[in-house]
């Protein structure tokens, strides 16, 4: 079945002529038509565009071109600007916004020949951990449609898990790739800050946002990451460093790999979650890795630190949505102030308004030092803790989430309860570190994720460690019932 093949296997089917990109695209569009209504994973379907791109990819191949992503379908999180296609960020504010340019991530994958099937549903402006804040309704977890898929990249995660696409793009500001990857049983990669361009990625928190990938294996993610990553002069925080050949680096033995058991991750962790991580550690030890206890004493402060820094940055970034040049405008504004207030008040959902106001408060006169400056100092303490740990170990390991997927509606009324879902992922964003989540088992028949975090620009080590685990286990091959 075409949707059970890896990106590498699909490439071989295409190269051999056993299938074409058009046939592959039709196959996934068919699955989307049948299976997406129960999931609500997508906001905009781009079927005609996809078929045109697929024909173009087939023509390129006929003309002698090749490449691992040539003709391979994908889904983009609806936060990436896609030229000529609606880019809504899951918000009423941009419901009518047709992007006039491609994000660099989109352009790079397009140049590699990938075919865009659709734009994925997401928490509004990437703010959320459950994909319940979207203007377009919640996304449902294919493993149990009464449960959330996680967020904010819930649509990308659900679509990948349901095999509606071989891979999907996402963004991770506080865990928004890793957490939904864990809750939907797929592999999610957040690269080092600055590794992948943010040009055309609608900004939430500029010092934290990073684009990444969902796939069903680390090996597939490595192929996609190689195409996405690289210096971009249009992103002033983009790092000018060569992109390694990630796929070629996989398969290196894990003997001697030092994995840090992060004490603060295991304090108070539920017994079944702890057991899954320990099972995974046994796999790593059998592969020759060593485990070392490490402690990051300031890590428990990462959630409050994030919920000062991220809202502060978002309040600045979202000030551009003012009803003047693009996006939602209220009806019959009486004056400019009314135009701003009602366009924003009506265009944004509750969580977005909460975060903008939190940010406005912590940046306001009299509070800036106590909150924002203080949080920036704690951010450095957390980053220094990681740096010290990486002097002793190559990678750090732990759970991705405290629990499996929770029920839709269970946590949406209390923001702080929702925020604590990011407790294991946020530290990596604050320190700008790369992280990966991969399936490692089940609790109550729902998938759970294992997280690896590495030092800056250690994607090779991370992908190799994840791939090594996946060669020795089969959690990543499991599929939700009905989506096999």
């Amino acid at each position, binding site marked *: 079945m075409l949707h059970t093949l890896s990106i590498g296997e699909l490439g071989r089917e295409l190269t051999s002529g056993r299938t074409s990109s058009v046939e592959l695209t039709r196959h996934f569009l068919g699955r989307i038509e049948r299976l997406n209504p129960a999931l609500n994973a997508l906001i905009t379907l781009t079927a005609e565009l996809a078929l045109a791109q697929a024909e173009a990819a087939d023509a390129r191949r006929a003309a002698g071109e090749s490449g691992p992503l040539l003709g391979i379908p994908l889904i983009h999180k609806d936060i990436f600007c896609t030229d000529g296609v609606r880019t809504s960020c899951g918000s009423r504010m941009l419901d*009518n916004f*047709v992007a*006039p340019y491609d994000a660099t991530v989109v352009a790079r994958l397009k140049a590699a020949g990938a075919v865009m099937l659709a734009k994925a549903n997401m928490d509004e402006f990437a703010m959320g951990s459950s994909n319940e804040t979207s203007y377009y309704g919640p996304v449902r977890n294919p493993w149990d449609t009464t449960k959330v898929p996680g967020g904010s990249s819930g649509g990308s995660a659900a679509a990948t898990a349901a095999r509606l696409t071989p891979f999907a793009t996402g963004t991770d500001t506080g865990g928004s790739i890793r957490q939904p990857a864990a809750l939907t049983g797929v592999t999610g990669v957040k690269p080092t*800050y600055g590794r992948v361009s943010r040009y055309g990625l609608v900004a939430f928190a*500029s*010092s934290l946002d990073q684009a990444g990938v969902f796939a069903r294996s680390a090996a597939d993610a490595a192929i996609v990451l190689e195409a996405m990553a690289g210096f971009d*002069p249009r992103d*002033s*925080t983009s*790092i000018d460093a060569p992109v390694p050949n990630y796929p070629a680096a996989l398969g290196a033995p894990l003997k001697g790999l030092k994995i840090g058991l992060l004490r603060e991750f295991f304090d108070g962790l539920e017994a079944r979650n702890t057991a899954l991580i320990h099972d995974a550690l046994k796999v790593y030890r059998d592969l020759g890795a060593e485990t070392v206890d490490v402690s990051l004493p*300031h890590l428990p*402060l990462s959630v*409050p*630190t994030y*919920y*000062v820094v991220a809202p502060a940055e978002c*309040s600045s970034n979202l*000030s551009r949505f*003012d*009803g*003047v*040049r*693009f*996006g939602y*405008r209220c009806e019959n504004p*009486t*004056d*400019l102030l*009314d135009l701003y*207030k*009602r366009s*924003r*008040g*009506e265009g*944004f959902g*509750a969580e977005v*308004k909460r975060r*903008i*106001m*939190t940010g*406005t*408060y912590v940046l*306001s006169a009299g509070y800036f030092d106590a*909150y924002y400056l*203080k*949080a*920036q*100092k*704690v*951010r*450095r*303490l957390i*980053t220094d803790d990681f740096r010290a740990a990486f002097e002793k170990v190559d990678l750090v390991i732990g759970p991705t989430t405290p629990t499996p997927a929770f029920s839709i509606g269970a946590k949406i009324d*209390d*923001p*702080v309860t929702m925020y604590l879902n990011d407790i294991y992922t946020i530290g990596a964003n*604050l320190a*700008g*570190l790369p992280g990966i989540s991969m399936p490692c088992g089940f609790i109550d028949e729902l998938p759970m994720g294992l997280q690896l975090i590495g030092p*800056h620009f250690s994607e090779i080590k991370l992908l190799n460690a994840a791939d090594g685990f996946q060669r020795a286990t089969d959690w990543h091959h499991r599929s939700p019932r009905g989506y096999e």
Partner: protein
Amino acid sequence: MSLTRLDVEKIAHLARLSITDEEMPVYVTSLSSIVDFVDELSRVQTGAVLPMAHPLDGQHQRLRADAVTEIDAHEKYQANAPAVQAGLYVVPRVIE
């Protein structure tokens, strides 16, 4: 250290957000709980630690030559505007 309704009204004004009377109590409660949650940071000893604005040390703002590289494509960009006239964005009168 909870917020009052007046606090939230001031913040909403600064953020240029309209909040209805029905919505106000929910925002007062949730914003207060968020502020209480992040107040934990005030108890952390940070001493002489330098604030960290972004995660990669040594990054600085790149500069480029002062040369024109963008072309005028305002019609394309203004296609998304709520109201445009003669290439200008139309808004309620600002200056009397």
